[in-house]
């Protein structure tokens, strides 16, 4: 049945950004605080799900034209690529490297290849959850 979801939709737009920001924070904090790519990814897809709930599949697809299955591939590519990067340096697979850099605006920041790996996890998780949800949603 058709309902007027104006309240929900309006709020969802706001909350979406809140969740996304929170997710990104959780993702970046992973190495130092609880969190990480996995939870971050799940939260991000949670945000997308919220949009899906408030609107519908068609609208969201138009707004976010991403093939989530390719996102899975991309994530795996990040993950495996980061790990395989060590092959180039002839150090054991999965050897991470990190250093501290002075960056404008951010200040002293550690850049860590593990972060790239975590990014892979993040993408995969988004891809996986969204693929599942979309597929089931479309199955009607």
């Amino acid at each position, binding site marked *: 049945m058709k*309902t007027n979801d104006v*309240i*929900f939709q309006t*709020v969802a737009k706001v*909350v979406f950004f*809140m969740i996304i920001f*929170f997710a990104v924070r959780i993702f970046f904090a992973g190495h130092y605080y609880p969190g990480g790519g996995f939870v971050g990814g799940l939260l991000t897809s949670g945000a997308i799900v919220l949009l899906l709930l408030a609107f519908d599949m068609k609208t969201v697809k138009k707004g976010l034209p991403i093939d989530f299955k390719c996102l899975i591939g991309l994530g795996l590519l990040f993950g495996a690529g980061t790990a395989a990067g060590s092959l180039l340096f002839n150090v054991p697979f999965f050897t991470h490297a990190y250093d501290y850099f002075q960056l404008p605006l951010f200040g002293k920041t550690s850049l860590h290849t593990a972060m790239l790996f975590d990014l892979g996890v993040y993408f995969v998780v988004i891809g996986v959850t969204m693929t599942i949800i979309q597929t089931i949603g479309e199955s009607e």
Partner: protein
Amino acid sequence: MTVISDIIIVFLLLAGAFLSLVAAFGVIRLPDVYTRNHAASKSATLGVMFILLGTFIFFLAKDGFFSSRLLLGIAFFFITAPVAGHLISRAAYNSGVKMWDKSVRDDLKNKK
């Protein structure tokens, strides 16, 4: 300073907890889903906001830790709680849950 903050924290905590209890009590006691929803969406929300505020002050006072996440949490509740209540009631109504038999009026029945 610590004493004052302690008092504030204790107050907020207990008030929050009490409100939550009231909400729960309301949810148990009130007769139909709409009225229960009143209890849940108001008291529980305020209760949790009190407690979060207390926590915020707790960490601020103890560690000097300014937890933006707590503030964010409060804001989040502020925004979402009424929407959740609204959606639940609407869902209940649309799925045909009857109102309490002492209810007196239903304008929604003849919705355009």
